[in-house]
């Protein structure tokens, strides 16, 4: 009898950044100064903003926030590997992806404060933000539902023979959802150009990955869909960049999607920012001076944005009734007018 039980050994996730800050010679891509610096700067920006959000949430200024501290490499490395007109479908911890795509800090601040200048008129609880100008999609906090949207957008691009792909992020807990399964199964059948990045941080709220599934890791689930499955060191922005670039290229070549498991090391383990900084320091392009300037600039930018949002007022009451439909139907007009 042919047994297909799980293999006992877990593959060790691929890394690129070595302890001495150098990049593993087997790494497939050249990394320019500009890109290396941009990756680091955006991780720092995401970190600083994130820590401020955690504080604002503690103070009760914002109702909720899902921190990505320690996961910046997975978030920034993946989005940096995609093309500008690719779609990005974040989950709750990907504010860094929107920032990479050019969402202004002020727009983010208006979003999380739900102000009159929030693009969504304060309708959504904080995170993740959407940014239409750069195809960062609007997703709900419902775990898993957005995976199908990413697959559908990629499938549509393939139907239209456009070189456009989708990047979708989710946590390892989301792999237990029915949407994960039905969506990636569609991706396999349609060869939709999608890169699905599973941030395995080991926990779904209080539930450990060991109670989430009995599979050996999460990348192996790709086998059920005829997709490629890859594990990568989620604290290594350079490795994530490379793995997602590979996946994007493979998808564009018509070979279909990839499930990337970005393994996030426990809090005790290496900090993704420190690891990338060590690499930058091996380059002429970075020194303590620039490091200091960066932190000063980012802190100032963040405070300016938050101050702007905190000065703004709430949306007008009537805005509740807009955008339910393209045009206001009779019953919503009545409900709105009754408030007057």
């Amino acid at each position, binding site marked *: 009898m042919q047994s297909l039980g799980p293999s006992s050994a877990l593959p060790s996730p691929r890394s690129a950044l070595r302890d001495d800050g150098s990049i593993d010679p087997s790494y497939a891509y050249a990394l320019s100064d500009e890109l290396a610096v941009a990756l680091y700067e955006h991780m720092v920006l995401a970190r600083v903003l994130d820590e401020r959000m955690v504080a604002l949430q503690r103070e009760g200024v914002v109702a909720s926030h899902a921190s990505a501290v320690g996961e910046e490499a997975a978030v920034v490395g993946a989005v940096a590997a995609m093309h500008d007109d690719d*779609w990005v479908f974040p989950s709750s911890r990907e504010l860094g992806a929107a920032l990479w795509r050019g969402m202004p800090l002020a727009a983010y601040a208006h979003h999380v404060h739900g102000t009159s200048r*929030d*693009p*969504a*008129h304060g*309708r*959504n609880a904080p995170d993740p933000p*959407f940014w*239409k100008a750069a195809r960062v*999609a*609007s997703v*709900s906090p*419902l775990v898993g*539902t957005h*995976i*199908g*949207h*990413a*697959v*559908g*957008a*990629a*499938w*549509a*691009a393939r*139907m*239209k023979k456009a070189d*456009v792909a*989708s990047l979708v992020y989710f946590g390892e807990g989301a792999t237990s959802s*029915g*949407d994960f399964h*039905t*969506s990636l*199964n*569609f991706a396999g*059948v349609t060869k939709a150009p999608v890169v699905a990045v599973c941030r395995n941080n080991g926990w779904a709220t209080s539930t450990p990955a060991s109670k989430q599934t009995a599979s050996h890791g999460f990348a192996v689930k790709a086998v059920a869909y005829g997709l490629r499955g890859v594990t990568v060191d989620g604290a290594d922005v350079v490795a994530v960049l490379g793995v997602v670039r590979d996946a994007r290229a493979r998808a564009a070549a018509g070979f279909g999607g990839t499930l990337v498991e970005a393994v996030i090391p426990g809090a005790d383990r290496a900090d993704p920012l420190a690891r990338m900084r060590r690499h930058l320091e091996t380059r002429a392009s970075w020194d303590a001076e620039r490091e200091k300037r960066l932190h000063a600039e980012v802190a100032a930018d963040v405070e300016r944005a938050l101050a702007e949002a905190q000065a703004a007022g709430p949306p007008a009451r009537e805005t509740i009734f*807009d*955008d*339910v*439909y*393209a*045009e206001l*139907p*009779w*019953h919503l007009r009545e409900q709105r007018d009754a408030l007057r």
Partner: protein
Amino acid sequence: MTQMNMVQAINDALRHEMRRDDRVVVLGEDVGKVGGVFRVTQGLWDEFGDDRVVDTPLSEGGIVGTAIGMALYGLLPVPEIQFSDFIYPAYDQIVSELAKLRWRSGGEYPAKMVVRTPVGGGIRGGLYHSQSPESLFIHVAGLKVVCPSNPHDAKGLLLSSIRDPDPVLFFEPKRIYRAAKGEVPEGDYTVPLGKAAVLREGTDVTVLAWGAMLYEAVAAADEAKKQGIACEIVDLRTLWPVDIETIVASVKKTGRLVVVHEAPKTCGFGAELVALVNEKAFLHLEAPPARVCGFDTPFPYTLEMEYLPLAHRILPAIVSTARY
């Protein structure tokens, strides 16, 4: 003008719009080569091919979820759910995602599609091939809900539904898929959403119905006429947003209301119609509004003709409402 049944009229509308608008994509279980279990999409795959008429894997959630992504990309998906009894695996995608995308994105990411699905009993389908879940979608803000009762409206309403900017649930009464025949104009025409049709004018009782039950309402009204009761029969056509003016005008005239639907009575759309009439025509009501509905039970196999609110159950409600 050609004589068509509902299946042919809907097929004609899909073909027409797919020729006109290459964003339109049909997807679902078995909608391709075989043309769906009711043959509504027959021939579309032959004309438009694999990329626009897609046999999907067996997952309603996957169908609607990926269709939302297609819509975001710029296509105009028209997914088919093989029976509306099978729509629940897609319920989360429809009510949590599809219905809310425009609103939660401040109008920047509307997701437009028309979900087609056969509805109702009368084909000996038992409890999982006969349901009428319309009120479960009417309750959810952001969706439009349509149910045609004849071939002319089926084509005209489907074309309007595809061209309307909002997501539409398009319920097709399967009991009359082939039984309802009529003249259908060739080519382009639309029947507007949100407009009911006064099928028959009358002064004594307003009867609200739609889909397959409209014919039962007519049969009951014919009997009532013999007893001297003149019913005004309104085919709602669009269930939500409903044509409130037509309903209120009619009830103000007749002072009496009977609502007919296949779905279970409790929290069915009939309750909303009664409540709306109370709010807008209270002083005109001369009798308690009556609801003739499916029972508050699952849908039976052997006894389906006992379950359905057929003419023999509608007539006494009309009479007692008129005589109240």
